[in-house]
């Protein structure tokens, strides 16, 4: 692209709020900050002149790093785009970014959403979506639109990797209020990724099953697991939600434990039911260090009443 000239501009003349070219969102990499602190800006950002100052086409992260330390009155060297269409500039920024890094889910969603307004369906499907590694199925487009509409807090969590895209799919039908309650929970507990997804999935299933808002099981769970200091124990929260969603399975596990106690099952012979009591294969395990311990284990096994075994292995 030749329609670019080198120039200087004031940081204060750059419109950081403009997101016509939304190629970066989220935390600034420490390595970039170190590099700029050590040797300054090695590659000039690409800007576009507009009525409200300069739009950032490419190089937002570099400019944000500089703006953290500079006072805004200093001049910086930039490239200015001239006589170029938005589509040309968008493409350039897209491929320049892709050459050096992966986009996070918020960036992907923002880029897709912005591109959808600039390009034809054919261009979106043949160039933009493959470049963003987005499958062509409608649910991936919908996911992008949902993320673009998230609150700042939630977008920050997603960009930072605390929330994954599977969780986004689960909460895509949630209201702003419900999502806010979730981000509050994340902030309060530090729940992230897999455990967060499990909690959200259970809240969503409970809400769906009982035909209520996810807030209902969330608030009930919070109330049930608050500790004396007013904090939430994450493991208790997970157990509470599991028990509420799987009442019969939970009861079966409790009954199994109660039976072992009733039959005075030896503590060093670990007896486990099949996962979720499905399939019928029980597992017995024990440890030993030599023939003496082996003999003791065998004696204990021989002393177990067969009726007790039958009762323990009776499927719920």
């Amino acid at each position, binding site marked *: 692209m030749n329609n670019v000239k080198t120039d200087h501009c004031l940081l204060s003349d750059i419109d950081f709020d403009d997101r016509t070219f939304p190629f970066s969102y989220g935390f600034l990499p420490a390595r970039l900050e170190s590099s700029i602190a050590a040797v300054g800006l090695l590659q000039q950002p690409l800007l576009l002149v507009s009525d409200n100052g300069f739009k950032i086409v490419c190089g937002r992260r570099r400019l944000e790093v500089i703006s953290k330390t500079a006072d805004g009155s200093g001049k910086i060297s930039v490239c200015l785009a001239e006589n170029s269409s938005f589509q040309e500039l968008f493409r350039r920024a897209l491929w320049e970014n892709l050459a050096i890094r992966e986009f996070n889910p918020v960036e992907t969603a923002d880029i897709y959403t912005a591109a959808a307004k600039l390009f034809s369906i054919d261009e979106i499907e043949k160039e933009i979506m493959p470049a963003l590694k987005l499958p062509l199925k409608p649910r991936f487009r919908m996911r992008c639109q949902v993320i673009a509409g998230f609150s700042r807090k939630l977008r920050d969590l997603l960009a930072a990797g605390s929330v994954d895209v599977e969780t986004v799919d689960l909460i895509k039908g949630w209201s702003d209020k419900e999502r806010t309650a979730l981000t509050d929970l994340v902030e309060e507990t530090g729940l992230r990724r897999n455990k967060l997804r499990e909690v959200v999935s259970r809240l969503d299933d409970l809400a*769906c099953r009982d035909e209520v808002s996810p807030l209902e099981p969330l608030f009930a769970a919070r109330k049930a697991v608050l500790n004396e200091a007013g904090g939430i124990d994450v493991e208790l929260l997970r157990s509470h939600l599991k028990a509420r969603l799987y009442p019969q*399975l939970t009861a079966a596990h409790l009954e199994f434990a109660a039976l072992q106690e009733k039959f005075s099952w030896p503590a060093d012979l670990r007896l486990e039911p099949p996962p979720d009591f*499905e399939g*019928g294969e029980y597992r017995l395990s024990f440890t030993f260090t030599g023939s003496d311990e082996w003999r003791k284990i065998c004696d204990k096994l021989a002393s177990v009443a067969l009726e007790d075994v039958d009762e323990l292995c009776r499927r*719920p």
Partner: protein
Amino acid sequence: MTILKQPPDYSRSLFRPTKVLVEEEAAGYPLTESIIGRLPDAEVVTIKRPSSEELADLSRQFGPRTTLYLARHRGRFLKACPGTAESYRCCLYQILHLALGCNIGCSYCVLQGYLNNPFITQFVNLDDAFAELDRELGRPGIFYRIGTGEFTDSLFMDPLTELAPGLIDYFGRCKSAVLELKTKSVAISGLLDYSGEIGETIVSWSLNAPRICAKEEGHAATIEERLTAAALCRQRGYRIGLHFDPLLDFPGWEDEYRQTVASIFTHLKGDDIIWISIGAFRFMPQVKEILKSNHPQTNITAGEFIRGIDGKQRYFSAIRRRLYRFLVAEIKRYAPDVFIYFCMEDQYLWQDTFGFAPADNQELSHWLDKCCYRYYD
């Protein structure tokens, strides 16, 4: 007997496409010509066989809900039912693969997660299908139970394709196999009007609770309509199969399933029914998201589902047991001798419900074969 206010139109296809996509290879086949002839107002577009990407393009260009796709099938027509892992008992059913997809729109349909082709597709090279059947069914000592309703509904567009009479005629003459046409529709005019040898063709209806039928089964006929159609087919000489699949756990399920069982026996006698299958709701985990996305109003995946040994989500065994015991007891009240079997269930629940269990898939298959008169011929 419940009297229907207005009898349904048994000659109405549930699918009336406004467009027909014809693969170049499918042009000229008699079935292609006859289907197009029955759709005089439809736009007909001939296309080259598309790649999967081109298929996605076609899907955007032509709405799959209103477009019928006619193709020549290149693979095998007769396939073993995919069933599930060995830990659950399967009946070794065979599928005659003549069409793909269905527009009834059941929320729980597993095809949502399996099919890559978004169009309702009819394979038109029937001569190849019958040639393959001739080769396969001629093998000595093997008895086949064959259905067309696994990847589609056997009858939902039969008034448009008019496939059923040809199939009934073929299997009526074939002594080593029975054909089962499985449906949720009442498009049975082709079956009632057929005047040839029926043999032992089975017409089967999927049944469920009335509430599930109304809420989760899209354009399917009501339970009463299905059973009225079943009674008409029985009068005409067909054997009747019934399939409670998927059985769902929801508030008030006992009363609802009791109603359906009572309805069955106001329309049919136990002797009319060759078999009744029962299968509790199960699905591959990845289907859940697709199902919720396609049917946001449904809550059927939000129950107490555990991961089965085959990797599918299924109800915790205590729930399945309760559903099975209840339904089997209800059916047996009316028809103590009717053959009931489980689809994809484990031996423990067989034993617990019936007091016996098939040792393996072959034994279950044999039990079903024995339900067919011609198995003994």
